[in-house]
């Protein structure tokens, strides 16, 4: 959810049209969650995504649930720290151990930033500079120490690509 928000916010700063749609059902009370982000040069109709250009998947259950929801020849970036089912056909799948990498960085919560970095390393949808500005702006007051580790995690992801 946060990785999606950062990407949407950064794309907005770069003057693009964006929508961000969260899972707001029982998911938010435990279990898996997801969000759908659309970045476009023209006005966006539905914020709902049937088949995505790219899926960033951080756990095994979500991989099972969403792996078929990618366009033909689309990209899936998956967290191999969890057991994942077989890759779907017709999609390019990149597997990285985001959770293990985050633990090595000293904070399991930055797995999403590493994943976001690896995605932008592949796609370059928004500039790293804008992502850094967004992370800085979104960090809650009094928790500015989080900026550094999130940036570090993002950079590590970027280098994976």
């Amino acid at each position, binding site marked *: 959810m946060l990785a999606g*928000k950062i990407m949407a*916010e950064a794309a907005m700063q770069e003057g693009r049209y964006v929508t961000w749609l969260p899972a*707001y059902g029982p998911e938010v009370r435990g279990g898996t969650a997801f969000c759908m982000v659309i970045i476009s040069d*023209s006005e966006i109709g539905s914020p*709902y995504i049937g088949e995505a250009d790219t899926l960033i998947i951080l756990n095994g259950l979500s991989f099972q649930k969403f792996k078929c929801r990618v366009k033909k020849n689309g990209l899936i970036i998956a967290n191999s720290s969890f057991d994942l089912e077989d890759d779907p056909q017709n999609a390019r799948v990149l597997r990285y151990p985001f959770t293990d990498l985050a633990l090595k960085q000293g904070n399991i919560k930055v797995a999403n930033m590493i994943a976001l970095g690896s995605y932008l390393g592949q796609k370059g949808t928004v500039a790293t500079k804008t992502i850094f500005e967004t992370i800085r702006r979104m960090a809650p007051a009094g928790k500015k120490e989080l900026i550094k580790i999130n940036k570090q995690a993002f950079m590590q992801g970027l280098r994976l690509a």
Partner: protein
Amino acid sequence: MINNLKRVLMTGNEAIAEGAIQAGCGFYAGYPITPQNELIAYMAAHLADSGGVFIQAESELAAINMVFGASACGVRAMTSSSSPGISLKQEGISYIAGAQLPAVIVNVMRGGPGLGNIWPSQADYFQATRGGGHGDYRSIVLAPSTVQECYECMPLAFSLADQYRMPAIILSDGMLGQMMEPVLMRSHKPLAISHKPKWALGNSKGRSPNVAKSFYLREGDLEKVNLLLQKKYKTIEAKEQRYQGQYLDDAKVVLVAYGTMARIIKSITHKLRGQGKKVGLLRPITLWPFPVQAFERLALGKMAKKFLVVEMSAGQMLEDVKLVINGRSAVGFLGRLGGGMPSEEEIIKNITSLL
């Protein structure tokens, strides 16, 4: 007055709350329910900073009656909820309409009937546009279709409610409430609230006391009040119709949709126009008064031959379209129920069959 414009990524629910605060909302009472919780949460966090009063009420009934009281005292007052909670508020809305007081009520619609589910729906159209509570009354109903419009419709809702002294309803839905989009925002300074209205309750020293009531026992009195209300509604029907048209001049098929459905139709219309297909969009912004003038023009014009109404309901706005078209053109319908939403493919298939 517009200075310091900035873009902020926010949900439709938050945009409504921020729009209300900037419109000078002085009182909010509400009770939590998904999918409108971001609205009440935003009000809890920010309304007091702007000098307003926030109350998390013990129930929806309490909330709407607190709004009744605050409004009677001349304060810009609002409440919000989602479908089941809005049903609970109907008695209060009818009383507010009867007492001729302004109030803004936000309904972030979810699937029904009953407790239903938490997914987006447009099945409360009848409830909003036909009254919902008892008695011969109307509410002004506005339907935003983007998060930007969620923000912008609030000052309009408050000023229309004030001008006509009646309830104004914002009909949003779970999708619009939950999604984030950039909002171009004006300065954070709320509008200055004008002097206390002449009809408001308060210290009546030097004038005859004001009364806010909807109870008239003397023979003939209630009919007089009703005739006054009807006269007011006629004025509103003549003056306050709002809609957005797109590609209407040469459209062979006119799609009719509001809110979330309209934004989806809008992008489909662009796409089909790119393929040379003559489709257009008529998006009612005021659901009451229904923009009949726009439909009249199309019905009298030469080009528009067919209408297709698309809703997340079993066909509620459809009835208003049929009433105005009155058999002069074919009116088709596409809808999904109980939190479902027509897919792009489904919509295009239906349009193509009409072309």
